[in-house]
């Protein structure tokens, strides 16, 4: 290597060190309209001070003293809100056969890539469900340790109950489902399928043991399984199946559901439930769950009855939703009016409208994922895709859907921030208040005017640091 090249590298390294954000000092967001996510009225010409990763002060310009050494970020004419929290993000990356094979051993990088794309769009916290154990946990730990940028990830691991495919994903991999031969596994080596299942099912056993077997066990036996699971696995919350994944069959008896919820709570974890029908929703509410993962779903036949919605309010549950705009549903109905799904979606929209009216606290979800350019091209060409859509823009469409369903602008923000933090008992997140972790989004346009304005991301601050949005995702494996 020539001297010139070496000198160049040293210079470059020095430059890189220099341009990193200075950590020790205070960061001041100055002059913006602060909407703190508590529901309080917006604060115009506000100042928000951040030090050591936390919010230390917040108020009107004249009330807050900005230290002279502070790094100032001019937010005049802009809107300062808490970082968005995506409450239902089941599909972190396309679990197609090809990606599973091609990226074996590197799944955590896909989680990192997804969390970086989420962060870039203003989502500072996301919740990974299903999709294996080791990979989301490794990504979570790397992000928490500061080894990689990305949205905070909280991991549920497996979902208890139903047959293995619920935990295995893609569903076809589960060998146990009514002993139906697995259509994809026949093209694969058994050992590969075992490796995948092993990863997805780590800790509590293989797909079978979290599947039908669990349904045959007594409440006390299931309790022991869950207790061991939370003791041995570093999960952040628990999830179990109220229904089968796609069908309406009820998974666990009320007694077993109570046992699961109790064991979660005993370990200090929130417990949520996957439901697809009104009856399953009702049973889960009786069992004392904290969250309904997608509680806007009551099946393809009937919307929720008033009594169920009243019960949601009484039991103070938080209800995750997967909102879809009318424009999307109309377009979808044109292309596939006969499908079972379209009725479920239409009824879910009625349910959300009723829950919004009744004041049920909702949590924004969209089950979006990252995809290869090819997979994106193959998505149906429908407008405003949210549920199952493209990570980074699906949540905007979901917010637009809630807006058209009658949710008030301030409630909309809470649905994507403080409600989520409360539901998951994450006291350090969700609002802009002194003492909280400094996860902040600065928007160029007023989110209270239009849900579309959540798209106008000017800056993202996570853990008190300004995120270099242009650099994300750092090492894309599948999105480029």
């Amino acid at each position, binding site marked *: *290597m*020539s001297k010139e*090249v070496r000198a160049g590298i040293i210079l470059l390294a020095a430059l890189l060190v220099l341009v990193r954000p200075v950590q020790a000092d205070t960061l001041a967001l100055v002059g913006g309209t602060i909407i703190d996510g508590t529901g309080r009225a917006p604060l115009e010409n506000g100042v928000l001070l951040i030090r050591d990763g936390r919010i230390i002060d917040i108020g009107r310009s004249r009330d807050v003293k900005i230290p002279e050494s502070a790094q100032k970020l001019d937010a005049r004419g802009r809107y300062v809100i808490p970082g968005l929290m995506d409450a239902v993000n089941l599909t972190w990356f396309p679990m*197609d*056969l*090809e990606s599973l*094979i*091609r990226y*074996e051993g590197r799944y955590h990088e896909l989680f990192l890539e997804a969390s970086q794309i989420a962060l870039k769009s203003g989502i500072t916290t996301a919740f990974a469900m299903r999709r294996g154990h080791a990979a989301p946990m490794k990504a979570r730990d790397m992000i928490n340790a500061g080894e990689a940028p990305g949205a905070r990830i909280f991991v549920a691991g497996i979902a208890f109950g139903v047959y293995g495919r619920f935990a295995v994903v893609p569903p076809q991999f589960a060998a*146990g489902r009514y002993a139906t031969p697995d259509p*994809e596994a026949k*093209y*694969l*080596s*058994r*050992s*590969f399928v*075992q*490796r*995948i*299942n*092993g*990863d997805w099912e780590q800790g509590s*056993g*293989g*797909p*079978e*043991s979290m*599947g039908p*077997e669990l349904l045959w*066990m007594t409440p006390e*036996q299931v309790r*022991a*399984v869950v207790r061991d699971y939370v003791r041995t696995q570093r999960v952040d919350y628990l999830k179990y199946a109220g229904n089968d994944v796609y069908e309406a069959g009820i998974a666990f008896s009320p007694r077993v559901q109570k046992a699961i919820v109790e064991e979660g709570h005993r370990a200090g974890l929130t417990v949520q439930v996957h439901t697809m029908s009104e009856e399953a929703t009702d049973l889960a509410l009786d069992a004392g769950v904290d969250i309904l993962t997608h509680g806007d779903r009551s099946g393809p036949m009937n919307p929720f009855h008033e009594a169920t919605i009243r019960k949601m309010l009484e039991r103070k549950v938080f209800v995750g939703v997967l909102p879809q705009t009318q424009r999307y549903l109309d377009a979808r109905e044109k292309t596939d009016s006969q499908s079972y799904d379209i009725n479920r979606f239409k009824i879910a929209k009625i349910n959300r409208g009723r829950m919004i009216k009744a004041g049920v606290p909702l949590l924004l979800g969209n089950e979006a994922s990252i995809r*290869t350019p*090819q*997979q994106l091209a*193959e998505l149906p060409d429908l407008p405003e895709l949210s549920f199952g859509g493209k990570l980074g823009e699906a949540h905007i469409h979901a917010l637009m859907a809630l807006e058209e369903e009658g949710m008030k602008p301030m409630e909309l923000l809470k649905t994507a921030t403080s409600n989520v933090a409360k539901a998951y008992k994450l006291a350090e997140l969700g609002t802009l208040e002194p003492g909280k972790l400094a996860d902040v989004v600065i928007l160029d346009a007023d989110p209270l005017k239009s849900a579309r304005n959540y798209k106008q991301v000017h800056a993202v601050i996570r853990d008190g640091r300004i995120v270099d949005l242009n650099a994300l995702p750092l090492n894309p494996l599948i999105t480029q």
Partner: protein
Amino acid sequence: MMLPIGLRIAAILIAALLVIAAPVQAQTLAITGATMIDGTGSAPFHDGVLLIQGGRIAAVGRSAEVVIPDSSTRIDARGKYVVPGLLDAAIMLFAPELETLIRYEGRYHEIFVEAAQLALKNGQTSVVVPWGPRAPLVQARDMINTGSVPGSRIYLAGNIIGLGGPFSASFFSQWNAHVNRAFAERSNEAWEQGVGRNLSTLTPEEIRPIIKDYAQKQVDYLQYASSGYGNGTENFIAFSVAAQKAIIEEGHRAGIAVQAHTMSVPSLDLAIDAGVDSLSHGDISGIASIIPPQTIRKLVERKIAVGISPATQRHVDALEKEMPGEYAQLMRVAKVNRRNMIKAGVTMLMGTQAFVRSPAQLAESAVAAETSVHGPIGEAHFYALLALEEEGMAPMEILRTATSHVARAYKLDRELGTLEPGKLADLLILDANPLASARHYRRIHTIIKNGQLVDRDALPVVRVFTVNRVQARSVSARSRLSKYIPILP
């Protein structure tokens, strides 16, 4: 990037050392005292001497007749048998399985090299690859030919002209539901190389220039589809006789051999009429009918070499028992065809269609006994040789079917296939007489390729596909749950 001067000098020094350490070409290697079976069909002779110089056979004869230079390195082969290195007339190298195609995309050449090393390790000094992605095959072939890695010589056809790639209707279109379209298309293109299924819709004159181009693409011979692959729905005749003639003529004009892929008697007859040089697996005639005597007579008269993939009776019986169905039936019919062709004196070429197997594949596949066809590389050809013996082929003809006949059929006989002066020094020294029993081909004492001793223990040097992956626990749900459910039996 420029290296510092010190490093540059070191690099030059190392290169110089490597050159010095390489075997001195001028030197002679002498194999003495062996029974020579030269693969031409001439009778074996005892107490023979074979001299190797510069990678080629310099002389071969009785010890009384051959003068061994004083400076020669000698291999004492008294009591042993020297035969030409074995050739595989049709080997797959790796199985085009979905998982493999995805996992190793961009690294196929490494698996090809690995497979070629396993073949070499077991006495196959040259292998002919009838179907595969051209570019990585060429890459593997050239890596081996330039000596940058050890391995069996690879000769390749690339695509079967007229058939599609692995994700096309010619083969495994059912896979398409599970992969990105881009990957499937990329893969098909890697195989098809412009001579895919569309060709069968063209006239002979339209086909000609396409074949002419393809023959220039570093392929060693041409193989075209007289019939489809034969996967149930694809049993059609692919090309008319006129179109087949055009393909054959263009191949010959380019100086390379032309082979036909046939899966049925009608497609076989058409290929014969078109004047093809050889058939890729002419022992296969479907599940219903054997090859009629008049067709076999034509094969003899026209001197068409017939590629075969022999299987032992034990294997065919096991197939019928363990996986009864069309494949077992196909194999049973093929065995009858081979017996008839052997009787009639058809020139045959032994191929195995063998694959390299991963440890997982070896552990998981339900392999019937003595698998030769599509068997594991390194094993398959030994069973194929046994099968030929059992089907009534004379010992000397068995040797030629796995050596000189193959070389001639692919127009490689100027360099390969026999132990004659001037040929490349690819040979095996066996501990037991292969003419006494086909089992003795396993008794390999020494392998010499290109005049150099092969370090068999070191092979395969490239390990991509044969490495063990970490296995997941495979504890049954039942045993995992038993601690929660004490009464579980």
